[in-house]
């Protein structure tokens, strides 16, 4: 039967970074993953829904500690969206520790209040982008376009 081998070929092609049709733009078709780190259940649900609407497989955790535990267990994410206010360890410290373990995910600081001081603290800790809440479909689509284009 054709189907299993087509699937296998697709898997192999994906690993090689080329499309089953042969074109080299399949990187744009691979499944991206994200982790939302936010203690607010509303933000968790909405940010997950927004990311998933853009085809990003998303999980959420409620604290920086949980995020670090998940990463330590071997989980990898293309995108990590981190809030400022988190229990026990804030978003800046969480970011610092994530970078300290050698993680190279695209980290987005997603926070309720724009504050130059907060923004700088996040950037110094290693975030790639600082976004004032709410996270929007447009913003995520723009980030995905950027990531897919390498």
């Amino acid at each position: 039967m054709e189907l299993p081998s087509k699937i296998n070929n697709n898997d192999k092609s994906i690993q090689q970074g080329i499309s089953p049709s042969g074109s080299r733009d399949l990187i744009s078709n691979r499944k991206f993953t994200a982790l939302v780190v936010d203690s607010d259940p509303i933000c968790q649900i909405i940010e997950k829904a927004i990311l998933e609407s853009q085809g990003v497989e998303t999980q959420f955790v409620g604290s920086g500690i949980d995020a670090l535990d998940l990463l330590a267990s071997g989980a990898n994410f293309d995108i990590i969206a981190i809030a400022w206010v988190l229990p026990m360890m804030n978003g800046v410290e969480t970011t610092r520790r994530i970078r300290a373990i050698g993680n190279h995910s695209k980290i987005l600081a997603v926070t309720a209040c724009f504050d130059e001081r907060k923004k700088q603290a996040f950037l110094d800790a290693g975030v790639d982008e600082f976004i004032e809440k709410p996270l929007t479909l447009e913003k995520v689509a723009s980030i995905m376009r950027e990531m897919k284009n390498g």
Partner: protein
Amino acid sequence: MDRNKQHRQVALMRQSLFDQGLLDEQFVQLEELQDEANPNFVEEVVTLFYRDSARLILNIDQALDKSPLDFAKLDSYMHQFKGSASSIGAKKVKSECTLFREYCKAGNGEGCKRTFQQLKKEYALLRKKVETYFQLARQVGPVETACRSK
């Protein structure tokens, strides 16, 4: 005909929420996330917001009763509240959150208390209006039902 009239009523009610400044573009984003798999996503998220934020409202109320006021704690609570309010598109509530935080930064306890009273009014008003809207929308059903031929 009756059905169409009801749908127009729902649409007008929805529009009034934006015209009165109660909701902003973020609410539209939530509507865009609604689909066949999650047909009540917006109502569920807004319901969860009111359920979850009751805890924060209580925390802030209690913190405002203390003397001296802990502005850092108040600011932190409000930061969280603003995050979820902005995520559902609660425009006026979000504005009051911003004003409250400015009073916190200025160490103005009276300003905080006054603003919080206004915030609670806006919060309650929005709840009443969106609940009425959701109730009517549920009764009337989706637009497709109305257009279905007999």
